[in-house]
Structure formats: C-alpha cells, structure tokens
C-alpha cells in the first residue's frame, strides 16, 4: 500500500533526527501519539504536536510514561497506527507495558533516544546503553524488533520501516536511536507519497462469529481486529488461548509464549537488515550500530591506510541478532572489533556467535560523547596483530580511560 499524500511532507529539509522521525511516523500513517517530555527526545514529540493536527493525527501528553505506553497500546486496539517517544528513564518505566504489548501482539512503535545512563545520568548527551534493555527489559519471554538508525535521513526511513514491521509481525518495534542522531541536523529527503510503501494493518475480514483473535496464520502472526466492530473481543495480558480467554493450563502456556518468540525467531531472515562492506576477505570486521557506525567509518579509514584489511558490518536491525551471519564471518575473519557507547552489551552477542573462531575486542565508551576514531583504529591494529585465540572479551583501553584513570586528570568544577 502507498502512503497517503496528505500525511507526507514531500520535499528536501534540513532537520534533526528527532523531527525526521516525527515526520516519518506521520508519513507512515501514524494517527495517535502519546508522549511525556524527556530530554533528548522532546523534539520528536514537538514535531508531531505541530504537524499532527494538520494531518488528522491526534496527540496527547500523558501524565507519565506508564500512561503514554498504556494509551498507545489501547489506541492500537482501536485500529490506528500509533507511537510513543521517550528516552532512558522513561523507557525503564515503560518496560511493564512493552511486555504487555508483546503479549497482546499489539503493533506499535517506540522511539527511544538513548542518553547517558544509568539512572538520570547525562540527559543531554549520547549513549547506547539501553540496547540490551530493548531486548530483555520486560519480564518473561518475548522477542521484538529493534532498529538502530544512524542519520536523520535514516530516522525518517526507518521510522516508516518500523511501522511496517510492527504491522507485519504484530509486535512492538523499537527505534533505538541516540542523542547524537536525534540532535544531528542534516539533509533529509522526504519522497513523494507514492514512493513510500506502508504496510496496512492485517485486519480480519471474515464473519464475526468465526473470529479468533490469536489464531496464527502460516507465518505465525494472527490477524488483528479493532474495538467497536462487534467482534466481542476478549483481550487479556494473561496467558490466553486462540479465543483470547485466559488459560491456567501449563501445557498451553509453553506453547503460547513460544509462538510469541517463534514468530520473530523463525521470520528472522525476513526481518534482519545488515550493511556489510568488505567483509568477505577482511582480517578484522568492525561490528557497529547507530552513531558508533559513523565514527567507526573514520577509524576504519585510518586502519586501512595502514594496510589492514578491515571489513565493516553495521547492524541496522540489532534485534533479532544475526547469529548465523556472525558465526559465518567468525570463521573467515581473525577478529571482531565492536565499538559501542557502553561497557559491553551487543559485544556479548558477537562473542557468543563467534564460538571461539575469532577474537572479540570491545572498544567501550561510557557515554556523554562518542569514540575517538583513533581508538577504533588502534583496536583494529591490536586485533590484527594478535595471533593467538583469546578467551573472553578483550576490552580495549581507550584514550579517555587512560586520561581519566591514569593521567592525573582532575574533574572540572
């Protein structure tokens, strides 16, 4: 299906990532946004507030993040495409309802502009330390999809993609951006509406009395319905059967929760999007996502000048994780270098999939800034020189760490 021309602000703009994401949501046909102000994500919500009323999208600023996420799950069941916008602490508050949304197989998009953490941390500066939280943050077993755009243009494009994935797989989709991308102002090209593909909701169209809200189609995803159509929906966050009725049967519970997980795991090859460059004959592969991948480009450049064969792998979808591709590459390359703005999160999954075939070097960064590309280049050099297999993560000691902990560094007042 094509986007509605009314929703799409076709043209060339010079806007920041947050705003681009807001426009992307409206272009994708989002008709309800609930939010709560939190730095650094407010610009996205503000963009929706300004433009939403002109395209028939309603917004509400709820009393807290718990309310925002509950409201959008509700709105999704009233039949509209919906999104909420938040950052670190708000994201933590939303965890309960993210699991609830996954349980109800509710399509919605959550834009998380990551900042330095934990707790209040550094609200105005960047971080990538919520990436594991997006996979494991709610209780119980579930799987969802997380995208990591790295530029305002991608914020626009991948917000639309997020809506499409959400509708296709009936699951929450996270856009795990960060403050750098969110506040980065660049050229964004918004195409004509007929150049934007949007996934319509997979609505049930058969007779009302036959409808089973949780009866899976062959791809394990059930058809959705909306409130007010006389289907007498019974929807609960308890473990339920195909009718939606709660069951206490433990045999059923493992089957049911299993499908929630499997509908993503078994469709993973259709979901995963990677950007690879020069990985086939590389000695070292730099695995990165989000803003780190843009910094890594420079690091790779420096290393290549030294004659090292470096390949890059960018995770556009961080979750589900490309296990198979990673294991495949581990057999070919000598090492992975993983720069991320945290003290090791996605690197654990890289190490897991490497199965000891390649060394794994983490280039950590605590947040509130991005890597020094020289650190990444040095880490690549270190990795390529290392002949023997190393068990465990190799943590590269960055210039920042050296200056803070060894250089007699004094904190500024």
């Amino acid at each position, binding site marked *: 299906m094509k986007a509605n021309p009314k929703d799409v602000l076709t043209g060339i703009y010079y806007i920041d990532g947050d705003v681009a994401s807001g426009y992307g949501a409206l272009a994708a046909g989002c*008709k*309800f946004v*609930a939010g709560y102000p939190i730095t650094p994500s407010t610009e996205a919500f503000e963009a929706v507030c300004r433009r939403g*009323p*002109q395209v*028939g999208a*309603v917004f*509400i600023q*709820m*009393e*807290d993040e*718990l*309310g*925002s996420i*509950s*409201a*959008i*799950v*509700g*709105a*999704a*069941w*009233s*039949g*509209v495409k*919906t999104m909420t916008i938040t950052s670190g602490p708000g994201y933590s508050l939303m965890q*309960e*309802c993210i699991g*609830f949304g996954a349980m109800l197989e509710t399509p919605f998009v959550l834009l998380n502009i990551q900042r330095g953490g934990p707790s209040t941390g550094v609200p105005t500066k960047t971080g990538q330390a919520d990436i594991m939280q997006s996979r494991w943050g709610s209780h119980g077993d579930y799987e969802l999809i997380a995208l990591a755009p790295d530029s305002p243009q991608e914020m626009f494009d991948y917000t639309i993609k997020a809506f499409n994935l959400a509708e296709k797989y009936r699951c929450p989709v996270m856009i795990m951006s960060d403050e750098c991308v969110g506040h980065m102002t660049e050229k964004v090209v918004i195409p004509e509406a007929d150049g934007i593909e949007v996934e319509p909701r997979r609505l049930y169209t058969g007779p009302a009395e036959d409808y089973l809200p949780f009866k899976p189609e062959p791809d394990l995803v059930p058809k959705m319905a*909306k*409130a*007010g*159509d*006389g*289907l*007498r*929906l*019974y*929807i*609960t*966050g*308890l473990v339920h059967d195909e*009718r939606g*009725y*709660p069951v206490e049967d433990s045999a059923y519970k493992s089957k049911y929760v299993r499908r929630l997980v499997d509908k993503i795991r078994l469709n993973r090859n259709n979901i995963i999007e990677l950007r690879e460059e020069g990985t086939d004959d590389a000695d070292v592969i730099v695995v990165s996502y989000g803003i780190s991948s843009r910094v890594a480009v420079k690091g790779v450049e420096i290393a290549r000048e030294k004659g090292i064969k470096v390949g890059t792998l960018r995770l556009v979808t961080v979750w589900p994780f490309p296990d198979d591709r990673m294991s495949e590459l581990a057999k070919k390359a000598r090492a992975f270098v993983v720069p991320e703005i945290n003290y090791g999160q996605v690197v654990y999954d890289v190490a897991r999939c490497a199965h000891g075939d390649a060394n794994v070097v983490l280039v950590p960064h605590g947040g509130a800034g991005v890597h020094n590309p020289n650190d990444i280049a040095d880490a690549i050099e270190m990795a390529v020189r290392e002949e023997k297999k190393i068990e465990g993560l190799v943590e590269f000691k960055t210039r920042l760490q050296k200056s803070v902990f060894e250089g007699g560094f004094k904190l500024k007042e």
Partner: protein
Amino acid sequence: MNSIISALNKGIEAAGVDRKRISITSDIPFEPEAVRSLGVDYFQTPRGRAIAFGTGLKLGNPSLKVIPVVGDLMTLGGNHFVHGGRRNMELLVICVNNFVYKKIAGIPAPSTQATFSPYSTFEEPFNFPHLGNSCGAVYTARWTALHTKELAASVSEALHKRGLSMIEVLAPGPNYYRRIDVVESELLQFYFENSVVKNNEDPRNAAITGDDKIIVGKFTDKERPTFIDSYNVQHTKILGDKFTPHGPASEKQKVSGGKNG
C-alpha cells in the same frame, strides 16, 4: 462482581447505547462468559492502567464508549484517574472498592476498613467521590453491591455524560481471587446495615470513616468541555481549515469552533 456485571448490563440496556461501541478496559479479570453476555469488547490491562489504556482507545476511535473498571482501589492507577478527570476524558470509570484486596487479603489496601483487616488497619482510605469531584469528574456516585437498581440507573445516566464519570461500587471482588478473610454474605449484610442513601450530598462529607454510616448516592452531575471538545475547539481556532476536527463533532463544537475559526 456479578452484581456489577448485571448492573452494567441493565445500565447499558437502559442507556440505549449500541453494545458494539462499548469497550470495557479493566485490571480485574472478567469471566469470558460475563463479557459475552454483555456483548462488548473487553481488554484486561496491567494493574492500574485501565484508565490510561482506555484513554488511548477513546482517542484512537472517539466513537467508542469506554468503561474502565478499576480494581485494586486505584492504587497504581490513581494518577491516571486524577489526570483523566482533569482532562475530562470521556470515560465511565467504575471503581470497584472491595475494602480489602481479596486477591491478597491481609495486607492493608488504601480503602481498607478496620473491620476486615487481620491487624487493625492504620491507613485512612480515600474518599473517591471527593477526589474525583476535586479533579474534575463530571459525574460521581457511590453504590454498594446491594443497590443494583440505583447502580444500573447510574450507569445508564453516566453513559450519556460527556466527560469523566466515576461510579464507586462497594462490592466483593471476583470469586476466584477471594481469600477467606471475608465471607461475602457478611459483607453484604454489612453494606445493608451500614449504608445510607444521600443523593446530592457534598462529596467531601462522603468519606468512609468506619464510625459513621457509609453514604451512598449520586454526588456530582455537572458539565465541562471534554478533552476532545477542547482539542477540537482550540485547534480549529488557531488552524482553521487546516485542522480536521477529531471524532464525531457535536453540535456544540461546530458552533463554538466555527465562531472562532
């Protein structure tokens, strides 16, 4: 719980609202049979989120009538309730007050009555009608499970109110979550002996203190613009033709919107 469902049934019938258009959001599990008998859509939300969930439903599709049924005495959801009242979100909130958490008897809940707690409870309960009234609800009432007729009448009346209506129902909780602390018949007997109907009483006098009789009745019935009304009016005023009003526009909106736009 059964009395609430039958009152809802009668109330919806009397109100003449299309059942297709009604959604119940609740953090109390309803029996599937009960929902079928009501012929409505039903959503069980996480504890305390029924009102926020309902807000989303209502804004996503303004033609719906949303009835959040809140158990757990609004402890977790208190904030959504007061803000819903302030916005005057068009919801009919049924607050099921069963005095103690039946689910988890023995632990003091906000409206726990001294009589029903294992230790004498030391927390004073909320006066829900007063709280509702003070944050802007357009309709507040309180009934017990014994006042089925009045409750049904209140439901039907409140379904036609534009704005947040709140009906507190003193009733035993759902069966399968009840623990042995209270025998249902004793509780009903207690309601019978200790309640007195005082319609239009100032809700601030309606606190359940444990010393006086429980005052039941309809306390508030007023008019205020709803969230969707103000949303439409304000945006039409500023944006004019660029703005398409949200939801089925009432006559009143058209008039006030047109005047300014």
